[in-house]
Each structure stands twice: as C-alpha cells, then as structure tokens.
C-alpha cells in the first residue's frame, strides 16, 4: 500500500503542475535546432526522386564550386570508411548514402555541407546524379511473385521475403476451427502512417580534433543505445562519445532509429573538425524516416452459437519498405503483435506474420504502440465486432461474455504472454454507464427508422508495455533494463537521473514524484535529468510506454536503497535501533514516541557531517531494474458518431475513454497523454495515410496531404479510470502513454461500421474519409 503524501511533498496521485513548463512557455527550451555553436556549418541531404533505380555517376563539381560549400559526401566516400551501410535496429542493414542503386523515393544519396543553410540547399540542387530506372515494387502482395523485381541485391538470399514468424498451436487451433459452429473474420489493412512529431529529426555533430571527443546533440529517444551503436559501427571509443538528447519536440517512436543524416553529420564533423548541424525538413521526415503500421491482416474467430469464443487465427503480411529498420526487441520480428488475443479468453490461438521488402521508406517503428500492439488491438477489436454482427449480438454483451475474468490473473494467453492483472468488466461497465449505452442503442433504433445514421463503437483493448525482462528482451543485444541514480545533497535537495528520455511525457515532474513518494522530499526540491550519456546511467530510452514500468521502478528501488541507508543514519542520530524506527513520508520516528523524529533533510545533512561508524559518507544510490514481466494496461473506449448523409462526414458526438494503468503518478499528466493519443487515433482512423502510387511516388509526403487534426476537428475527450495495480511493479504502476493510440482506432472504425451495418456494411479500411463513406452511401442508395 502506498502511503499518500501531502500536496507539498507531491508524491503519487497528486496532479503536480509540471516543472518543465516554465522554460517552454517562455520559448526557452533547447531543441537541437536551437543550438548555435561557434564555427557551426550546415548539412543538407540530396535525395532521389526514384523509387528503384541504378545509380550511374554522381557529379559533385558544380556543387563544390558554389562559394561556401565545404564538402559533398557520397556513398562512394563512405564506402572507403566502411560506413556506406549501417546496421538497422533489426537484423538488417541499410544504406547510409546510396551506392549502386536507390530503393525508395527520397532515399539519401549525397550529403552537402556548407557555411549556411541556404547555400547547402542550393548546392544540393547542383549535385547531378545519373539514374537508370528499374521496375518498381509497391504492392507487398506481389513481393513474392516469381517475376517480382528483387530489391535487395546485397543480400545472399535473392528474395523480397524478410522473415516468417509464427506463434501458438496451429494444429490445435485448426482443430477448433474445424468443429466450430460459428466462424467470422475479416481482412483489415492498417495503413502506413507516420508519427509526425512537430519537431523533425536532426542533430549537431561536434568533433573536437584537439581532444578527439565527439559530442552529438541528437533528437534521440534512446541516447545510450545510440552511443554504443555509434561506437561499434564507426569504431570510435565509447568513452569519447557523448550523446546529448536535449529538449525533444515529440517522439512517438519516430526518434528511436539512427538515421543516415546523423551518420553523415558525424562523418562531416570528423572530416572538417567543425560542428555540423543537420535538421531535416517536414517532407524529408514524412518521406524517409520511420513510418508505422503497413500491416495487411486477416483474423478469424471460431465461436459457439452463444458467442463464446474458442479460437483465433491470424495471418499478416508486413510491409517493411526497403530495409527492415523496425525498432523492436530482437527476438520479435513482428513486435508484440501476439497480444492479438486481447482481452478475451481464447482456448487456442495461432498467429503468423511474413515480412517483405518494397520500394518504400524503411522501417516499421513503434508509433506510440509498444511494437505492433496497435495493429493487434485494432485487429481483435474489429474482429469481435464482425463476430457480433454475424451473431446479431450486441458488441458490448459479446465482449462482457468473453472477457478474461478478473480472478484468472496472472493469466497465460495461448500466444505465450502472462498478463499481470486486469479487470475488464469493471472498465467496460464504467464506460457503458458513463456514455449511457442503453439509451444510445434505443436512440439508434429510432434514428434508423427515421433514416438517420448513427453508430456506437466499442474498443476494449488490453495492451502490453514496459519492455522488458532480460530473459526475452534486447535491442541489438542490449538488454532492456532501465536505471536510476539519485544523489541527496547535504541540504536535503536531490538530483535524480534516469536512462530514459522524455519527449513531452513530463518525467521531470513524474519521476520526481516517485522520489517524493518514497523519500518524502518535496517535488520542488528534486531535479530530474535525462538524456546526457556522460551523466545519466545506462538505459534503453523512452518509447513503447516503458519508462514508468522500467525506469520508474528503478527510481523507486533506488529511493528505497537510500531510505535503507537513511534508516541507519536516523538510528544513529536518534540513538535507537533500526527496528524501533517507523517511517512516514519525510521522516523516521521512534515507535510510540513520534516527537523523537528526524526528517529526511536532517538525515541528509548528517550523511555528510555526522556519519555513523562503519557507514560510508553520502546519501545516494543507483539501481538497474530488470522488470520481471511486462505490464498490461487496458481500458474500454466508446465512440458515438453521427454521419452526414449529404457529405459522408462522420462527426464524433462523444468519446468516453476509461483507462486502467494501475497506480497513477500524476493524474493530470495521464489525462493529457490520453487526450493526445486519442487525437492521434482520430487522425489515423479518419485522415492519414502515407500511400504510394505504382511508380513509388509518395502521396502524403507533406502536411498538405498528410493531415494533422486541428483544434476544430478534435472533439472533447471524456476520460475516467479504474485502477488494477500491477502486482509485480514496485509502485503498482503500468505504462499508459500509448493506450489511447492503441485502443482508439478500433473504437472509431467500429462506430462508423456500426452506423452503416444495417445497410450490410461489414468493414471499411482506414482512413475512413468522408469520400469513402459518401461512396458507400451512394452505392447503398442512401440519399439525403
């Protein structure tokens, strides 16, 4: 049980106002592009307009003639240093600068360095590249055709097939399907989209020849991992590399990979001995950096006539673009997609995924989704609605019937995960009550009789976050623990550093709240720092909602180590034995004599001035936390939509989000995360796609076409919570930042399909634009 602290201390559960806000509201944040270093020069990437072509000559003379141009680096130059290719985060390699051929539109071909931004851009236009087109492959369904162009000639196996992965019991599952009275399923495409954080990716690489030290300010969600990879790949000594991730303007997974721009900036800085800044434009960001999703999925559910689900069968085709640059744990080519049995008690399940190459931007990163959990949750929540439609059963009733019961946790699902805790019925019932479900269904009946279109969509997702235990999880071999180091100063203030790196999640406040909770030091007296590899303990960074489950736990554990030492010091100061002391947040006191007490501040001072015999001076600790399991946040989202028959426009009338992330550190911050994630889900469901035409031209490569919702399109989100603590986490907390992006797309799609189901509509692929709906209305003969 966590003791509640006072608002002045601000421990768990308090909506403490954020400490990081002060600099941001005054425009005093330090984002990478804000850096101006003496002698700094600018890099600009030359990119190919062709999706698949052989490279002939690259002529750089005209570019070099332009006054102010310092260097033009090509793949040929990098080849000499063994850097033309670099390893991806997932068992593959990718070109830093193209050699031999280009494989996707906007791929990096040359890097120009000049004294100022504009000159670098001018020079980039003067670089001449000869291309010979090759046939383009953009449809992953044709990637394995016998006559498909082979994209990766660098690989031994001349095929566009990357991997096949399967989990579960195929035979047992097929057996259940054979005898099941009811089978329902769907083909669902989760379209390629992009995290599009408002700040694009970039870096300033600063190599000092005099000290042989390289400092790179980078938009990186995982600075330590980047440092180690730079050391291994570039052969630079790791103790002479410093990665600083300063303030980052949103990440959402887009800032996990190492991009060619970073490598080129480093190479240029090594070459010139000057700081080199590279900041990509928005078009470059959308067209070449880590995209998300692009999963073509098929799900089938075998069930009894009364709606009891028995088995799930899933098959997926994963489009990874030109290189498998997926950022996910090394043993999971499809990430944690096998959470696709979701909140339901399936007896058997089988899931297989095949990944292929196409002439598109490389990747498959985790966009606010804990490695493919968004795809999995979307699939199962759509499939359940399809089953409900098939059985003519209410979708809420079908779910309630099949939820894993609250008393069955820890629950081992047929695809291998052990869910730590959950009470899905409680979340569902809260949501149903809050939205007034019964009345809405009645209203829907009335509206249907009057020819109006109204839909209710439910998504009862369970997700899996907090990667992860060392026995199963690593990225490029580095285990996915995380860390915290805390130092209490003589005057009772504290500095804490973690191996994670926030990009808006509020760690400077929330992690301080954890220390405040454990030690009773007020949040105002605790400074939290992340992102500088010279000072922060090693960690795997922030993405996949892993920070609270891993670094948050480490923070609690380190705090407890400090408390254990503080107890020794308190005993010495109070001349009592350690067993006779009791703790309340902020002080130790003698049992039965509460006036005989020492505050944590007094203890801290004593740690430097009045040290007990046999005890080291100082009051600090570091903890590296290996989570015993992942955490499984969940929730129920319900969306009510009205469709305009004239324009096909879907209007969100209400959206209720009930989330359960266990014990909450800062409710205000959690709600903010939910609002933001739901807005991303809205965009994905209704507005966004990075599509490619048959020549490999990107459609959706700028904000003119890749739409971000404004305040006008975004509805008010109604949030609520249930609380089912994680039994294995020191604070009972689970991750939550990604839940809204995981759970909401299905809620939106289910609502629209529900609005049209009486017309015979079973599924509509995202993005569900008014145009798509309008076409369906026309087809079904619905008139205004």
């Amino acid at each position, binding site marked *: 049980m966590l003791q509640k602290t006072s608002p002045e201390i601000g421990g768990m559960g308090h909506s403490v*106002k954020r400490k990081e806000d002060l600099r941001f509201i005054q425009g005093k944040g330090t984002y990478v592009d804000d850096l101006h270093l003496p002698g700094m020069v600018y890099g600009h990437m030359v990119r190919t307009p062709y999706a698949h072509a052989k490279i002939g000559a690259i002529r750089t003379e005209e570019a070099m003639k332009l006054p102010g141009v310092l260097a033009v680096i090509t793949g040929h130059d990098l080849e000499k240093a063994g850097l033309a290719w670099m390893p991806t985060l997932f068992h593959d390699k990718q070109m830093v600068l193209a050699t031999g051929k280009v494989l996707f539109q906007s791929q990096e071909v040359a890097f120009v360095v000049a004294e100022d931004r504009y000159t670098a851009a001018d020079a980039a236009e003067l670089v001449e590249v000869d291309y010979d087109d090759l046939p383009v492959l953009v449809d992953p369904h044709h990637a394995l055709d016998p006559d498909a162009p082979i994209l990766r000639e660098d690989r031994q196996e001349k095929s566009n097939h990357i991997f096949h992965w399967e989990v579960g019991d195929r035979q047992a599952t097929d057996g259940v399907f054979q005898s099941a009275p009811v089978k329902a399923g769907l083909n669902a495409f989760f379209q390629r989209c992009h995290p599009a954080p*408002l700040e694009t990716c970039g870096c300033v690489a600063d190599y000092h020849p005099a000290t042989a030290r390289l400092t790179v300010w980078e938009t990186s969600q995982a600075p330590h991992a980047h440092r180690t990879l730079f050391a291994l790949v570039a052969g630079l000594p790791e103790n002479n590399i410093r990665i600083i991730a300063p303030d980052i*303007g949103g990440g959402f997974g887009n800032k996990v990979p190492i991009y060619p721009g970073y490598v080129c900036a480093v190479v240029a800085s090594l070459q010139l001995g000057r700081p080199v800044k590279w900041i990509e434009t928005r078009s470059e960001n959308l067209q070449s950096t880590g995209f998300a999703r692009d999963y073509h999925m098929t799900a089938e559910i075998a069930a009894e006539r009364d709606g009891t689900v028995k088995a799930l069968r899933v098959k997926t085709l994963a489009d990874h673009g030109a290189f498998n640059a997926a950022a996910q744990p090394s043993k999971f080519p499809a990430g944690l997609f096998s959470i696709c049995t979701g909140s339901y008690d399936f007896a058997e399940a089988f899931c297989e995924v095949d990944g292929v190459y196409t002439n598109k931007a490389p990747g498959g990163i985790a966009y606010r989704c804990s490695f493919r959990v968004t795809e999995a949750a979307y699939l199962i929540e759509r499939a359940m609605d399809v089953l409900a439609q098939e059985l003519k059963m209410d979708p809420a009733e079908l779910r309630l019937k099949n939820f894993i019961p609250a008393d069955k946790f820890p629950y081992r699902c047929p695809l291998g995960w052990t869910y730590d805790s959950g009470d899905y019925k409680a979340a569902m019932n809260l949501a149903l009550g809050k939205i007034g479900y019964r009345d809405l269904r009645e209203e829907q009946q009335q509206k249907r009789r009057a020819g109006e279109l109204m839909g209710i969509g439910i998504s009862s997702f369970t997700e899996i976050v907090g990667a992860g235990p060392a026995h199963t999880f690593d990225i490029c071999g580095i285990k996915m623990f995380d860390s915290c180091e805390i130092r209490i100063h003589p005057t009772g203030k504290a500095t804490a550093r973690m191996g994670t790196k926030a990009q808006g999640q509020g760690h400077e406040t929330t992690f301080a709240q954890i220390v405040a909770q454990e030690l009773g030091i007020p949040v105002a007296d605790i400074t939290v720092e992340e992102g500088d590899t010279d000072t922060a303990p090693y960690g795997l960074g922030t993405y996949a909602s892993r920070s609270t489950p891993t670094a948050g736990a480490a923070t609690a554990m380190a705090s407890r180590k400090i408390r254990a030492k503080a107890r020794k010091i308190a005993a010495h100061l109070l001349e009592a034995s350690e067993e006779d002391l009791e703790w309340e947040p902020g002080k130790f006191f003698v049992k039965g004599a509460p006036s005989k007490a020492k505050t944590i501040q007094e203890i801290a001072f004593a740690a430097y001035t009045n040290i007990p015999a046999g005890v080291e001076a100082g009051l600090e600790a570091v903890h590296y936390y290996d989570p015993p399991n992942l955490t499984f946040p969940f929730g129920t989202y319900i969306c009510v939509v009205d469709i305009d028959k004239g324009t096909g426009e879907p209007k969100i009338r209400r959206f209720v989000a009930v989330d359960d992330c266990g014990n909450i550190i800062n409710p205000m911050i959690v709600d903010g995360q939910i609002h933001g994630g739901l807005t991303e889900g809205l965009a994905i469901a209704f507005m966004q796609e990075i599509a490619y035409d048959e020549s490999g031209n990107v459609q959706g490569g700028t904000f003119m076409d890749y739409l971000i919702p404004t305040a006008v399109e975004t509805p008010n989100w109604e949030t609520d919570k249930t609380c089912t603590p994680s039994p294995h986490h020191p604070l009972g907390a689970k991750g939550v930042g990604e839940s809204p992006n995981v759970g909401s797309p299905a809620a939106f799609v289910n609502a629209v399909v529900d609005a049209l189901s009486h017309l015979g509509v079973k599924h509509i692929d995202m993005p569900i634009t008014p145009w798509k709906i309008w076409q369906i209305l026309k087809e079904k003969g619905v008139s205004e």
Partner: protein
Amino acid sequence: MANKQHVRVKVNGRDHEADVEPRLLLVHFIRDVLLLTGTHVGCDTTNCGACTVLLGGKPIKSCTLFAVQADGRELRTIEGVAANGKLHPVQEGFKEEHGLQCGFCTPGMIMAACALLEQNPHPSEQEIRWGISGNLCRCTGYQNIVKAVQYAAGILEKQNQ
C-alpha cells in the same frame, strides 16, 4: 549569391538591423540572425503554425514571409510575451491547465492565443478552437489548450475590472 538588403525591425520593443538576402525567411531571421530560438519551424508547407509571431499585432506564420517584408515593422515573439519577468496570463494558463507536453508548438500557440484574446476577450470554446486552428499540436489533443486560453481570459477580465 544575391545582393543583400538592409532591414530594420523592432522586435519585442528593441530595434534590430541586419543585412540579409532577400530570400531569407523571417523565421530564419528571428532564429539564426537574432538568435531568438523560441519561435520554431515544424513544417515546410505553411501548415503547422509553430512559427507564429505577431507582426504589427497580427498573428502571422513567419515561415511564409521574407525578412525584408518585415522591414520597418514591429514584431513580437514568445520572448517578448512575459513583461519584466512576470508571466503573461496566457503563459500562466498553459502552466495551470497543462496546456503543453513537449513544448514545441507552445510558443506559436501562445502567440495565437494572445492575438485571439486581444481581438475577442470573451471567446466561446468554438471561437477558441477556430482561433488556434492554424496551430498544430501532436501531444495535447487541444483540450487543455482551450482550458488554458479560458483561464487566461478569466485573469485578463479580472485585471481589466
């Protein structure tokens, strides 16, 4: 290289002059020449509004104006919003109502909000949403930003009483 032109701009109450290329964007003038890096660049198609500043009191996207177009005029950026170290009610509102997360859209939002409240001291929720519709945010879902502006409107009303 094109001939440079001399520009004089008053920024946050102070006079600045520089010789710039005619094609230098105002946002680059602000960030790279004046070193006021609070104004941000978030896109290249004039969609996102992260670069919003006030030109003669009106909110404009500084990525879509040339520095030379601001010659002889007055600019206000995020650095000029707090007066004498005291936060503006809009800034307070953002802090009190959790109107920001990563902070990147925030300066542009605050400028847009200041301009909105200047023009319409008692905006409805819809008017606030329309008023900031030129500013994209990826983190907050706008809900708390709306609350921040309402908070500020309340403070400003009390101050004017």
